[in-house]
């Protein structure tokens, strides 16, 4: 007997509105359909019709709260290519530091959510406590925890001051010391291993064909990382290597566990990058064109196109920008957030899983779409029954307990 279960449009595992239509037979998921058309904000349209290019940096920042450095980073890369603009060395380093700070906080946020999805709430609280350190540094350096408004065409808007450096270094020490503990909790814990090993497998072939990116692709053994393949900002100086799970476990399975491994190792990698960047931070200006009016005039006169690709915590974010002479907004603007490419991998991942696995598998790609608290289960006689988020969460927790007692 086949049943259809819609999960979403709003759901705790999916942080923005999206609908997963599952076809299930008993507990097993047979087919998945993803329906994204829930809430279109028309951000590209605003950038192409209403805003001037500088305003568009700030609207790009609001595409996603967690990726509030990544989208501006990609849009400025695209515009700098279109205008053929040079950026001061110091600004390039500060951009790298900002991007890596974002990666640390985003991956830790995700790790906490993942722990919550399998009913391990004490670990959620511990991870988020650890994450607070980097949030404090973000606030110290930028004056704000999210939407930092730091990126600008031709540089950055705020410098990293001398007095910030010892505090950032202290934070890096904290993460270096705490990493082993965090890795032990996540990677050696029996419960987490049971709930994530061999669950939600994405094969390398599927990852390549479906265009998966970021930790999702790397966990399946695709060594793809924009910072390595086509470095930008100051990344060529750091020789970044794409992290795959075999570096830690010796094999690539491509399951949820591997995606945890990749993200945790990336936190460590980011700490190392920031440490080097602080030591080698060049002196000099932070903006190529400090006069905003002149910059806006230059943007209006510019003609050209550019593609900005940035390795965001969730994968590659790509912006395409076309500028036309005497046309103030972007003539064409296309934003592709990482989840756009990763959503398709849900389909092979979820097939064959149990309903109780949906929260952790769906969360394992770190979806950046948005969230609800209920699921409507349509019974065979067409009657609708609402399973609350609490109920779904309870099912997931129950499975953890069942597994601990030796069930399946």
């Amino acid at each position: 007997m086949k049943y259809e279960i819609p999960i979403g449009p709003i759901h705790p595992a999916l942080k923005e509105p999206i609908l997963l239509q599952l076809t299930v037979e008993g507990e097993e998921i047979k087919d998945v359909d993803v329906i994204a058309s829930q809430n279109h904000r028309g951000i590209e349209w605003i950038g192409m019709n209403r805003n001037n290019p500088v305003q568009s940096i700030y609207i790009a920042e609001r595409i996603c709260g967690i990726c509030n450095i990544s989208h501006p980073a990609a849009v400025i890369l695209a515009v700098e290519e279109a205008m053929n603009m040079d950026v001061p060395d110091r600004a390039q380093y500060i951009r790298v530091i900002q991007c890596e700070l974002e990666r640390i906080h985003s991956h830790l946020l995700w790790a906490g959510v993942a722990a919550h999805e399998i009913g391990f709430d004490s670990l959620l609280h511990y991870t988020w406590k650890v994450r607070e350190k980097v949030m404090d540094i973000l606030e110290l350096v930028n004056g704000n925890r999210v939407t930092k408004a730091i990126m600008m065409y031709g540089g950055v808007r705020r410098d990293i001051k001398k007095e910030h450096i010892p505090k950032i270094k202290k934070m890096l020490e904290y993460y270096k010391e705490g990493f082993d503990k965090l890795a032990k909790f996540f990677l050696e814990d029996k419960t987490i291993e049971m709930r994530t090993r061999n669950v939600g497998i994405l094969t390398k072939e599927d990852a390549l064909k479906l265009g998966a990116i970021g930790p999702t692709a790397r966990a399946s053994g695709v060594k793809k990382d924009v910072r390595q393949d086509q470095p930008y900002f100051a990344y060529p100086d750091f020789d970044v290597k794409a992290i795959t799970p075999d570096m830690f476990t010796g094999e690539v399975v491509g399951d949820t566990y591997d995606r945890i491994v990749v993200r945790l190792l990336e936190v460590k990698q980011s700490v190392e990058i920031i440490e080097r960047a602080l030591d080698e931070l060049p002196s000099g200006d932070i903006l190529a064109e400090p006069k905003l009016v002149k910059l806006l005039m230059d943007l209006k006169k510019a003609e050209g196109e550019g593609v900005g690709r940035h390795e965001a915590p969730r994968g590659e974010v790509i912006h395409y920008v076309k500028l036309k002479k005497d046309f103030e907004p972007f003539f064409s603007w296309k934003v592709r957030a990482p989840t756009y490419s990763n959503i398709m991998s849900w389909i092979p991942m979820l097939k064959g899983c149990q309903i109780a696995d949906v929260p952790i598998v769906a969360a394992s790609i770190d979806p950046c779409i948005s969230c609800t608290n209920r699921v409507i289960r349509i019974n065979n006689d067409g009657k609708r029954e609402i399973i609350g988020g609490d109920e779904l969460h309870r099912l997931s927790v129950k499975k953890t307990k069942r597994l601990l007692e030796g069930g399946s």
Partner: protein
Amino acid sequence: MGVKRMKELLEKLKEKKIKFEIREREEGVKKKGKRKTVLVYTPRENLRDIVKMLIETSEDFPHFSVCSFADYGDYVELNYHFSTGYGKPLQETNVILRVTLKKDDLRVPTLTDLVPATIFSEREIKEMTGIEIENIPDGRHMFLTKDFPDGVYPWRRDETAPKETRKMYEVWK
């Protein structure tokens, strides 16, 4: 695609007399690296052949990112953003396949059977620009809601663009 593989692709394009352009931009502070882009002016009838060539000359599989679009009045530009050669430091090349279409003949063949990742972008292009995708396996709306009016295409700059747009505070009234 390593440098050798890239040359192979460019040779094949030359053989078919397809125009292309190579763009480079230097990045990095102490150690310099080049961001390479190959822009291929793709005639619509050769689009599928060129994608096949791209797959053949790629070591893994070409990564498809997204489609972008620009409206020039009489004609439109559709760009397929691919990248190949990832996995090794500084070896990746962006490949943009640019298809130019006349306004009165807006259609392109589907690529979903060759590159499965294109389905979302093709659905998006269909609803946002009104370009007909021939043989698209799934023609539902991607991002716009089900009840979005027909014949209104948000990315266009002509009479089919959305006319009445209201600011948020006007909606609240």
